[in-house]
Structure formats: C-alpha cells, structure tokens
C-alpha cells in the first residue's frame, strides 16, 4: 500500500533531480535536445541519479542487515566501525600502491571493512551488559580508535586534508567513468534479498537458529561480507553518508513492524528517496553552488536519530 506512494515519490524526485542544475534543461526540451544538453544529461545528470539511487538503496539495506544480525536497532555501518575501517583501508591502499586502480582500492578497503565489522561483532559477543544504548556507544568508541590509526598515518604522510575528503559524501563528482564501481553493490543487494529469511532466523540468536537447522556461522559471515562490500564501494565512489543505514530501517520499522523480507523493498525505496531528497535539497539551498550530501544527511540524519532515541525513551517511561 505505502510502497506505491514511495515509488511515486521516487519517480517525481528522480525527474526533479535530472532537470535541476546549473545547465538549464527543461522537461520540454527532452525531445529536441541540442548537443550540449545531451552531453550534460548523459555524462553528469543521469550517472548522478543512478549512483544516488544505488547508494541509497544499498546503504539502507546494509543497515537493516546489520541491525538484524546484531539484534540492536542502533547498529549501522556508522555506529559499528565499518565506515571507519573502510576509510583506513583506502588510506592504506594509497600508501601501499601509489597508483592504485579503483579496483585495488576497493579490495583493500573491503578487506579492512570486513575485518573491522568482524571485530565489532566479536566485541558484541563478549560485552555482557547488552543495553540497547550501550552497544552503539561501544561501536562509536571503536570507530574513533580506528580513526586514530588513520590519523596517525595521515599525519605522517601529510594526507589529513585528503582524509577529510572521504569523510564527506559528495555526489558532485560522480560522472560517467567515475561511478561504475557502484554497480558492484547490486548483486550484493540481490543476494541480501534472497537470504532475507535466513538473516531473520539468524537474528533470533545462535542456539535458536542452529536448532532450526540453519548454518548460523555461514549466514552471519555472508551478511558481514555484504555489509563490508557495500560500505567500501559507497565510501570509495561517494564518501561517507553518515547515519543513512541507521535511520532508514528504523523509520520503516516504525510503520511496518519487523518482518525482514517485507521490509526490504520499503527500506530500499525509502533509502533512495531520502538520499535523493537530501541531494536535491543540497543543490537548491545555495544554488548555483551545492552543499555536499554528507553534510545534508549528517544534519538531517542526526536530527532524526535523536528523535528516534527520544521517542524510544518516551515509550519506556
């Protein structure tokens, strides 16, 4: 029911996104485009739209998987050390191979993100005090530590300001030839959909899942691989989009409940709509300049996250 409205919103925003920009292209020109306009459309506008949609869809789904596996609503790549590890990976790949191809960078970032997420899950296993709010606190501290490693190297090699660039998600630089790496996350998302039911069972705890005949370890590991892969690809092509994986699944849960398979399409579309809306907003606010997506999502995202937290406390009280 509601999915239909989301899809309509997505289509409306997509059209808006294609026709907003410094170069004037109106929808009526569509059938009589001159060469300039066609070029802008094919090289910049459409790749931008595609990458926004892919990034939004996959980050939302990744957040949902992480929350399902850790059984905590406040865990996501931002609050679980995945983003910070991927960033460290990019830095390391830059130092190891001076002329790293995007593929090499992605592989190194992926390995680091996987390791970081894995260590975080191990920490979760060992923390005895499983307060819902304490867990993200641990995750954020963990992320801070990983960042301190990155800072150590970045300071040594004078890369601090470049490091900031990956901290800041930005779609302004996506154009033909620079965003195709994002396609890697599409199979990951499809895989996530196929395994949805198994993630739900894994979320019920190891003993219960094994009792139901699930290969618990393999499902959890697959989930972590998907999370790490998508996070590092998005980090490399777009940069950090903070809190996205956190708030989208939570909003869906608010009106949909907790059925993972049913929630996946909603999370995917809502993720795309949210990122697209933030991007259009960022482009309009200080037109003809633009505010990077990292900042818009960071500001809106932390606001929404705080609201979710307050709301939860209100229920408990």
């Amino acid at each position, binding site marked *: 029911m509601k999915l239909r409205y989301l899809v309509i919103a997505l289509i409306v925003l997509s059209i808006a996104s294609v026709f907003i920009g410094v170069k004037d292209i109106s929808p009526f020109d569509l059938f009589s485009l001159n060469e300039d306009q066609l070029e802008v459309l094919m090289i910049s506008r459409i790749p931008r739209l595609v990458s926004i949609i892919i990034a939004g869809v996959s980050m939302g789904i990744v957040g949902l998987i992480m929350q399902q596996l850790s059984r905590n609503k406040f865990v996501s790549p931002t609050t679980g050390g995945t983003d910070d590890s991927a960033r460290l990976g990019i830095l390391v790949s830059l130092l190891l191979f001076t002329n790293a191809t995007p593929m090499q960078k992605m592989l190194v970032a992926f390995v680091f993100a996987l390791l970081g997420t894995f260590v975080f899950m191990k920490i979760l296993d060992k923390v005895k005090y499983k307060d819902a709010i304490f867990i993200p606190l641990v995750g954020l501290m963990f992320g801070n530590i990983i960042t*301190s490693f990155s*800072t150590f190297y970045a300071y040594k090699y004078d890369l*601090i300001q470049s490091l900031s660039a990956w901290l800041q998600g930005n779609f302004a630089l996506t154009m033909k030839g620079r965003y195709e790496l994002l396609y890697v996350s599409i199979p990951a998302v499809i895989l996530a959909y196929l395994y949805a039911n198994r993630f739900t069972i894994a979320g019920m705890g190891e003993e219960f899942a094994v009792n139901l005949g699930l290969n618990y370890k393999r499902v959890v590991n697959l989930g972590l691989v998907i999370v790490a892969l998508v996070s590092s690809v998005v980090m490399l092509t777009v940069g950090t989009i903070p809190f996205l994986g956190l708030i989208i699944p939570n909003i869906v849960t608010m009106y949909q409940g907790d059925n993972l398979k049913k929630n996946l399409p909603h999370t995917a579309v809502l993720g795309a709509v949210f990122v697209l809306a933030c991007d259009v907003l960022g482009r309009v606010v200080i037109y003809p300049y633009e505010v990077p997506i990292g900042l818009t999502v960071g500001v809106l995202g932390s606001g929404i996250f705080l609201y979710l937290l307050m709301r939860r406390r209100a229920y408990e009280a």
Partner: protein
Amino acid sequence: MKLRTKIVVLSLFALLLILLFLFIGLGSNWGYSLERRAWKIAAIVLTGVCIAFSTVIFQTVTNNRILTPNIIGLDSMYMLIQTAVVYVFGSTNKLLVDSNLNFMLTLALMMVFALLLYWVMFRREGNHLYFLLLVGIILGTLLGSMTTFLQLLIDPSEFLVLQGRMFASFNSVQGQLTVICYIVAIAVGLYYMRLHKYMDAISLGKGHAVNLGVPYDAVVKQLLVIIAALISVATALVGPLTFLGLLVANVAYQFMKTYRHAYLIPGAILISIIALVGGQLIVERVFSFTTTVSVIINLVGGIYFLYLLLRENKS
C-alpha cells in the same frame, strides 16, 4: 601501607622523568632553554592532572571503565571552533593568533555547549546517563560533519595552520595562559573537595549510594560540571587528547588494585604525568618532532582500549 608505597614509587618515577625532560641535552644557552622547558612541563603536568582526574570521576559516575568524558562532543566542539575561526576570519586573524583570546573563546564556547547539553538532558526526569552520552556523541558527529565541510573549503596553506591546532601539542604553550589554567583548575579542585567524600559510595552504583544517604542526583550533576570544566581547560590549552584519560585511568585501576578514590585519583594523576612527559620525551628525542604526542597517545590508548574490550568482558 602498600598503597602508599605505590604512590611514592609513582611520584619518584614522575619526578625522575620531569628532571630528565628539564636537563637532558641542555645546551650552552641553558638559562633560556630551562625557562622554556619549565613552562612546557608546567603545561604538561596541568593537562595530565585535569584529564586523569576528570576521567576517573567520569568512569565512577557512569560505572563504566571504557568511556572517556571527551566523547560527549567536547573535542568536536573544539575542532569546529578552530575550523570556523580559520574559515571565517583567516589564519592570520587575531582570534587565532592571539592565544589568550583564542583560549577564552574556546573555553567559553565549550562550557556553554556542555552546560546546554546537561540542561536539556536533565530537564526531563528519569533520563539515564548512557542516553546523555549517546546524545553527546551524536551531536559530536553532527559538529564533526560541519567541521569536515568547512575543512574542505579551506585553502591548503591555511589548513596547515589549522592542522597545528587539531593535534594536542605542548610546543607552543604560553606561560601566561598556563597560569590562568592553574588558577581555574585549583578553584575547581577546591570545589571538588566538598564532594570527595561521596565518591566511594557512588562507585557502588546509584541504588547503594542512595541507600547510604548520598544525595545522588545533585552530586552527580555537580561532578559532571566539574568534569566538563576540567576537560575544557585542558583541551583549550593544548588541544584534544581523546584517549589519554582512558589509558591512564585503566592502568591506574590495574596498578593500584583498589576502589578507594583517595588512592585511585592520585595514582591516575601520576600515571598520566608519566605517560605525557614520557610521550613528549619520545616525540622530541626519538621521533625528533615528526609526530605529535597526541597522535602517539591516541594510538597506544586505542590499542589498549581494544585489548580491554576483548579481554575484560569475558569474565
């Protein structure tokens, strides 16, 4: 008796390091070098005391040994202030160059931030402390993304000036400022003496503390303000040192093996001085200034923290 010996040993070690720092490789122009080094050591000791002291209190209040008071967003606030000053006024403006002015501005804004946060959070009844921390961290992330945005817009050569401010460093500390900081810290310390008697009871947890007659909420609020004041002073004086407190407080617990704050706090303070003076010695003599003490401390502190997380929670 045994605890007292430990304190004496730590004091002697700290003193030894300080003397080493003051007199090692003192050249012919020793009057000048000695004076500069004396101011440096004064700033280092003050920072060490403030951070160790506030972290131990903070961990007692939160009943948790893996948290540090810097995470409630104070560090991010510091970064945002410095970045915004460079971005808006440029790196040669009085607000950045005049360290007294910069210090006052930073200190004031950081205190306003902390007090506003406390005020908003404690206005609602029944909010527990972890919630306050999480809100603090999220605000920190929010301030952080604004800082990153501004940093991208800054000209690379101006950014180098900013980078000097982003990492704690004792190389450019002003004498006059250090004196002001000492006065503030001593005033806060005197205020704390009124609350000191409650500390051991508070470490038992809220339930026990209230049962034993501690006015829990009132005391905790005052302690949080003390913590914010000390952290702000230390950060505004030298820059952010996120993991120092975590490192020294936990080493102190392990070394002192006691729950009595009369011994824990001095122990942590001495260990903190040892870590900072030792770290600064290593930066100056081994790395010959190619890195900063904060980067090293954050790295060592971070590794130690991971070790704590993976080990201690098993039991």
